[in-house]
């Protein structure tokens, strides 16, 4: 037996030496995104673009993978790996985590990596899209998948309530008026409420931007790290009072779980409400299911708080960040790949196959010429609304380091207004106090 053991030990020792030394010639970059779900065709689109890139650049290997299907999890995993010096070269990061990713120091701003030619090509990108990922005048990441909220409504129910189904509500007041008419025939329509919306800070951020109001101080956190939220501003109070009025009139409902866009889509498609707001990312799905459910779907722009609140919406979605642990060759290859992924041709492919926006003016023009928006008019609504956002501080959107917590507090304020009838002013005052404490704590860590 001892002989056998000896042989095994010998074999094991030998095996240490025969391992192939890693081949060094091609540059390998890794790219992680969240579109790897089993039935998610978007993953295949990304892989297709990566394959095309590798065919053009034989010295670069792009390893595309999707270790997680959730932005938060992907972020946590990638940054834990980064702490161990093992970060993926390119990480897809949700818009809300922009400031945190920048503060972490684990990423190199793309402005420092990209060539002059690549940076010049950014002029073609929509203003608000580029503005979102620019902090202190520097672009940190390459914008990629962009989405927006739009208004969805049930045209059949509008007709039944005596409303013109071709005239969508455009303002908060329009919604109140439409809901008054729909509420009158609530029993006949067999609905629970007139409207349901996802209980999320995202919508509130849009409505602040539309009123040209900043959500946080220091230029929405873009000139310097923010130290104070503007939750008690008149613009925010106006939004909160609309929530209160909608709820107290019995016009508003939600699934009971915050941030659940799927559940709200289900409620609307289940003909339990007449109006909802949801992401354009779900547009294709909602169109398909409304046909199955046998009602005529109306899609309109995100409603305005006031008729004159026309400053435009902010961006939602994610961007692509390059790890600071990448070698210069890897960083260069990563930059080349990212600008290939978002070039005019691939931007169109991505839009047509994912439902996310095209983010370049040139690709929107090309799609318009090809008649894409005539066959898909609902996409045009969402893109027009984003294109008309001029790109100023308010609609660039707020960047906040501890955004998960701050957004969570805002949602709790809305919940307490809608569910327990707390006065908007009181809820917002408490929310501001809590959020400011979180900001102070965060800044103490970053500064210290």
């Amino acid at each position, binding site marked *: 037996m001892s002989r*056998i*053991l000896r042989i*095994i030990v010998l*074999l*094991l020792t030998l*095996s*240490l030496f025969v*391992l192939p030394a890693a081949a060094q010639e091609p540059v390998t970059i890794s790219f992680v995104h969240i579109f790897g779900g089993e039935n998610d065709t978007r993953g295949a689109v990304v892989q297709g673009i990566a394959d095309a890139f590798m065919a053009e650049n034989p010295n670069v290997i792009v390893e595309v993978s999707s270790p997680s299907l959730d932005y*938060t999890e992907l*972020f*946590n995993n990638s*940054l*834990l790996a*980064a702490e161990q010096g093992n970060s993926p070269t390119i990480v897809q990061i949700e818009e809300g*985590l922009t400031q*945190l990713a920048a503060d*972490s*120091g*684990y990423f190199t701003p793309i402005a420092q990596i990209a060539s002059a030619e690549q940076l010049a090509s950014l002029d073609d990108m929509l203003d608000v899209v580029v503005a979102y990922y620019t902090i202190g005048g520097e672009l940190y990441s390459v914008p990629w998948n962009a989405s927006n909220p739009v208004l969805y409504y049930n045209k059949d129910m509008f007709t039944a309530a005596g409303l013109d189904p071709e005239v969508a509500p455009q303002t908060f007041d329009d919604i109140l008026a439409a809901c008054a008419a729909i509420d009158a025939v609530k029993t006949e329509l067999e609905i*629970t*409420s007139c409207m*349901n919306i996802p209980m999320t800070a995202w919508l509130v951020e849009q409505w602040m931007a539309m009123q040209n109001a900043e959500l946080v101080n220091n230029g929405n956190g873009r000139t310097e790290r923010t130290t104070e939220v503007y939750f008690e501003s008149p613009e925010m109070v106006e939004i909160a009072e609309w929530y209160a009025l909608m709820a107290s009139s019995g016009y508003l*409902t*939600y*699934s*009971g*779980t*915050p*941030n659940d866009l799927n*559940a*709200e889509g289900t*409620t609307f498609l*289940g003909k*339990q*409400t007449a109006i909802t707001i949801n992401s354009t990312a779900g547009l294709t799905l909602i169109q398909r299911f409304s046909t199955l459910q046998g009602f005529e779907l109306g899609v309109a722009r995100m409603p305005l708080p006031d008729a004159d609140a026309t400053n435009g919406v902010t961006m939602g979605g994610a961007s692509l960040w390059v790890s600071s642990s990448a070698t210069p060759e890897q960083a260069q290859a990563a930059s080349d790949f990212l600008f290939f992924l978002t070039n005019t041709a691939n931007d169109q492919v991505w839009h047509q196959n994912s439902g996310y926006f095209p983010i370049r003016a040139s690709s929107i023009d090309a799609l318009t010429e090809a008649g894409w928006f005539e066959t898909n008019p609902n996409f045009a609504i969402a893109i027009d609304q984003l294109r008309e956002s001029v790109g100023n501080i308010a609609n660039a959107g707020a960047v906040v*380091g*501890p*955004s*998960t*917590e701050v957004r969570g*507090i805002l949602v*709790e*304020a809305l*919940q*307490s207004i809608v*569910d*327990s009838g*707390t006065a908007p002013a*009181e*809820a*917002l*005052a*408490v*929310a501001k106090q*809590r959020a400011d404490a979180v900001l102070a704590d*965060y800044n*103490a*860590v*970053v500064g*210290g």
Partner: protein
Amino acid sequence: MDSELRFERFWTRAGAVIAAALIGYFVVSELSGLLRLLEWLGQGIATLPSALSVLLAHYASLPLSALILPVCIGGVVGGISTALVAGDARHAAAHRRNIVIGAGMGALSGQILTAALRHCTYALEAPLGETVAGVILTSVSALILLLPIWTLMRRRRSEGTSGYFRRPLLAYGLLAPTLLSLGLFLYFPAAQMVALSLNLRRFPLPQERFVCLGNYSALTVDPIYQTSLLTTVFITVAVVLISLALSLGIAVLASQKIRYAVVYRVILISPFALSPIVTGVLFLALFREGGTGILSFLALQIFGSAPSWLRDPTLARWVIIGASVWNILGFNILFYIAGLQNVPKDLLEAAQIDGATAIQRFARITFPLLSPYTFFLLITNVTYAFYGVYGAIDTLTQGGPPIGAAGQFGGATNVLIYKLYEDGFSPGSPLGLAAAQAVVLFVVVAGLTFLQFQFVERRVTYGE
């Protein structure tokens, strides 16, 4: 006989070859990981000298009071506790020697936690609460090294070596793999977590700021954390009582001699096969609001209005309790059915002959004989209610609905484990505070388990 011997020898060798092949396969396939582990261990060892110099520099810079006080406290605690526990009244000299050793070791051991705290609680400007906590921690720390020493003292006293391993080296060799993995994957991370709880840190920012017991004192004044603690107690008590009572009742019914009893049992036990997350999703399908939840829909059809299952603080708690009870019920029923099968039939028959009613038989015979099962289930259910409800809460309410304006008093279902997870794992959240919560939660659960063993187990009958 000969063939038997050959047979045995063959299988011994075959076993050795298979084991070696498996180990070899593991080593080869996991080579890169193992090398990384070795490299990491090497790096850890390489940092020891610098860590030591940091420690020495720390001690050199200490004010005299911060150095002497904890040493005295540790010494006194060590001396007194040794006299009480391992004192030897028969030999005065040995007694004195033990106390001196105890005091010395206590003074040394007291430094473990105190140095981990960087003696910050002994600083002059430390708040009173932290100073008191520091004294308690030093006293507890004094006992860490003393526990094994007391064992040695007792061993020396009890003559003879029976019951002890003759070759300690071999014993430690055999224990080494277990100790190594425990140390690497349990004790080391636990120690790191305690260290983290003394810092302000926000993942993934690399910055770290030492705040002494600041995270703990922040917890004591945080109304959201207090609500969370009360909510946890409420949900735990409700889940444990309801699930134990219900499962015992169901198990008694399912143990009756009826047709297809096995089928019923399988159906009753099956919810346990679902993870808490799946349970949450199932309950979401029932209780979702806005008209699409099955129960909400039925209520709307029948009564014209549906309760705010998830938006009303009281109802939301009961939905969570319901989901948790339903999830753990199968596990409890399984054990109770097994327990009921072990209740001797002759006892029950004898009681019946003596004229005992069914209720008397259950209360006087079955229930006491089931007490070991009840005790085991009590501990597992308490642990489940503390840790396992996370999945249901995450899918159903996410800690809500908020209590007070903008949730200033926390959330109705924001139990300790959910709050801990949210604080520890959402990007940019206060990691040091989460670590402090983890330490508190561990102390609470460990304390509860200890109390259960102390006070409940005495009433448990294990049979003869």
